[in-house]
């Protein structure tokens, strides 16, 4: 509850900060301090030091994992804002408002990690989405940004409609919005399948797939990610997507039986494999790194969908590690990309000679995305595969996963090759020392988790 209240308050405060001061640096710092306050407030609840709670009649339920995910996502957001603060300034002239928007998004996220009622799921998703439409169109003089925003808004509203319809069906079947409301057979008291329930869950499934950009509901992703200002794409592709996955799992962890166990193990692998296929194969053919990253984020979503396959602590561990590894590496790559004057792969030619440190960092981030050992990305993939195998997936699914992992190496390494092995003069904006230092922080986190991944889970058990 702390996180929801504090993030809302901070959002409102940020809205009025621009009246008090027009100094963007000050606004930025207020935003960062606000982020720290939010993280602390959440940690306070996690450890039971101080937590504001009131009876929500079972609308929200706070558990250790949800709060921990909050902490992780808030921390990633903090790192994101810390690195990209100056870039955010450059878009439009509403710095403080952007921070307000970020806090509203985080409010949506804290609802999505704690909802216990389908109505709260709906509200959480809306609180999350509407600010995102604004961020996508933030560069209002850029046609692509406008187009992306409109596209995102239309498609997003449509999928929210599907979500609502699904919730309505489920309400019709159970007479409740409560998340865990099985339909019981009066005679045996065991859960039974119900047509309306299954149909409702299927609609929910489609809508959630849309939100996490899984194929075949991914069509909006490349255009929106490509059109949105790069600095916001970085946020959308990481923290927001991760929150979508957490909500996705929360719904289907408890309810998948109602969908029929067989349905689940047919449609989920179908979605996973098609997501991996579309994301990876299309990424291979991209000439623009930004668009390649958009498709790669679809591919990575395919890997994260594996977390839905099983139903064990392994899955939670795997998803948490994956979220951290993927988000940090993606934020890192985007932070480098922002500094490039041109987003084509060729523009990276010869970067290693001109700026060895930056090239090394980019390589490390790409390695983590590709899942090369010594980086967190490797263990993220490992935990994921281990989790689905423990959950009883066939070896074929693992083989498909690693085949696509090998494909992903192909396109990530194209950038590495351009940087190290091709001569050229990359056009980059000047980079301050402090900016590179911030990227090193991400790199070190990725390396440490690449050797000791369990550091991330210690909190959950000890």
């Amino acid at each position, binding site marked *: 509850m702390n996180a929801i209240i504090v993030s809302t308050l901070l959002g409102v405060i940020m809205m009025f900060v621009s009246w008090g001061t027009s100094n963007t640096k000050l606004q930025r710092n207020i935003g960062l301090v606000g982020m720290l306050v939010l993280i602390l407030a959440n940690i306070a609840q996690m450890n039971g030091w101080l937590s504001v709670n009131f009876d929500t009649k079972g609308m929200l339920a706070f558990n250790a994992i949800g709060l921990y995910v909050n902490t992780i996502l808030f921390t990633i957001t903090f790192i994101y804002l810390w690195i990209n603060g100056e870039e955010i300034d450059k878009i439009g002239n509403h710095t403080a408002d952007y921070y307000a928007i970020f806090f509203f998004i985080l409010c949506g996220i804290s609802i999505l990690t704690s909802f216990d009622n389908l109505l709260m799921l709906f509200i959480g998703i809306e609180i999350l989405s509407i600010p995102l439409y604004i961020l996508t169109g933030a560069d209002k003089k850029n046609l692509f940004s406008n187009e992306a925003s409109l596209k995102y808004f239309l498609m997003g509203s449509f999928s929210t409609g599907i979500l609502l319809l699904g919730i309505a069906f489920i309400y019709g079947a159970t007479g409740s919005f409560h998340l865990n409301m099985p339909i019981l057979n009066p005679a045996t008291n065991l859960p039974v399948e119900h047509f309306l329930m299954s149909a409702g869950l299927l609609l929910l499934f489609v809508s959630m797939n849309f939100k996490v950009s899984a194929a075949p509901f991914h069509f909006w992703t490349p255009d929106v990610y490509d059109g949105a200002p790069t600095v916001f794409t970085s946020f959308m592709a990481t923290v927001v997507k991760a929150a979508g996955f957490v909500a996705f799992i929360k719904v289907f962890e408890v309810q998948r039986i109602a969908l029929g166990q067989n349905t689940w193990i047919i449609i989920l692998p179908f979605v996973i494999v098609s997501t991996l296929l579309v994301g990876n194969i299309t990424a291979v053919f991209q000439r623009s790194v930004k668009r390649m990253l958009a498709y790669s984020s679809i591919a990575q979503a395919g890997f994260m969908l594996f977390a839905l396959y099983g139903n064990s602590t392994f899955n939670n*561990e795997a998803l948490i590690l994956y979220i951290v590894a993927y988000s940090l590496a993606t934020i890192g790559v985007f932070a480098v990309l922002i500094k490039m004057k041109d987003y084509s792969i060729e523009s990276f030619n010869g970067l290693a000679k001109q700026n060895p440190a930056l090239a090394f960092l980019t390589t490390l981030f790409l*390695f983590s995305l590709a899942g*090369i*050992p*010594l980086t967190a990305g*490797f263990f993220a993939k*490992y935990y994921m*595969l*281990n989790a689905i*195998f*423990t959950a009883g997936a066939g*070896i074929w699914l*693992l*083989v498909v996963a*690693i*085949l696509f*992992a*090998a494909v992903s*190496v*192909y396109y990530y*390494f194209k950038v590495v*090759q351009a940087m*190290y*092995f*091709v001569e050229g003069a990359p056009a980059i904006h000047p980079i301050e020392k402090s900016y590179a230092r911030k990227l090193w922080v991400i790199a070190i986190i990725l390396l440490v988790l690449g050797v*000791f*991944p*369990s550091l991330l*889970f210690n909190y959950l*058990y000890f």
Partner: protein
Amino acid sequence: MLLLSILTIPFIAAIVLLFVKHNEKANYIAIGSSVVIMALAFNIAFNGAANFDADWILSLNARFILTADGLAKILILLTAISFPVIFITTSKNELRNRNQFLALMLFTQTGLLGVFLAGDALLFYFFWELALIPVYFLCSIWGGEKRIAITFKFFIYTFLGSLFMLIGIILVYTNTTDHSFLITSFKHANLTHGQQLAAFALFFTAFAIKMPIFPLHTWQPDAYEQSPTAVTMVLSAVMVKMGLYGIIRWLLPLFPAAAASHANFVIVLSLIGVIYASFIAIRQDDVKRLIAYSSIAHIGLMSAALFTNTSIGMQGVLIQLFSHGINVLGLWIVADIIEQQTGTRSMKALGGLAKKQPTLAILLVGFALANIALPLTNAFVGEFLIFNAIFQFNPWMGAFAGVSVVLAAIYTLNMVQKIAYGSVSDATNLMQVPNKSAQFVLMVLLGIVFVTGVYPQVLFNITADTLQQLFVK
């Protein structure tokens, strides 16, 4: 602690090297650290070393455990001897950013030593990849003209192979009784017959690509040709041994039933590769490619012998792991000296080396004889046992394998004839006396060839315990 220090020294030296811009100093650091490692390796090989065991990833129950038995010792010895030899003989070659080159080489050495020492499957996988990534950069930055595409092919090939192994590891790990990656738990995992076959296939793919076994060998000759010579030496002398090591350490003990039922299949593939590579070697004009194909042939023989499941075959391979490394290293160094001084690798353009540089010619002939496995050379001992094992397994296969000896004699002697004898060609006329250190190193290597050829008991002693574990129940 000895085992931990042999891993950390190259790693730390590599990091230090990244900051040493001066070429001479970089050379000294690399050579110095690799000589220290060599001393440690000798100590481990002849006096043994206690296991190193520490917690690593608690939630997965993975441990950082290093052990050195006979198999590991012989390969550590080979790795540790190879690197100083390579550093010394190539120290005069022109390379830009030499410090980075040497640093990446030492990272590779860390990975290789780790692979041979790891007693935990996840750790093994970790080092397996760690050995590959620096090589990717080494070949792509300092390699020949077509380096980028060819190195990438090599990288994707081996990376995909190791991912298959990763699935295999997950498969076995999930079925261990105590959920651990230790090799002992892996041996006692409860696998059904189907699972054992699947795991066998997954592990085997990774090792077969690395060795490589026909028809997965296509990356190799190109990669050898395009890599800078120092890296080619690492690849062919040490890195291919990773595949064989994997088979001896993991594949055979873990899945004995699957290995036995697929023995014919693997041996036939290996032997096809042997004969096929030998024939291609005969047709080569490029010295580097010739040695590359000859190396494929020798590795094929070793993998065939492993699957005969006989103790003499295993003994032969354990010796040959070391001997092949030394011989091929010697050949590469001679070839490199010739290429550096004449600027060509084509045998047509060479000739008359014996008249111009008799010392070098004698060294070349020495290593060539070892390559054919003539008695008194080290390879004779190993290959004799290997042929013996294949013959016992199946006389027809033995006969088929025997053809490779004749073929080896043809291409190796042909090479010697074209390079060393005949009239002095224009290219050979450019040859000068190779530098003292390179000559000294070559003589030491040739010394090893004959000492271990005449008195192989040194090597038998080192590997005795592995053989006992594998074949005396």
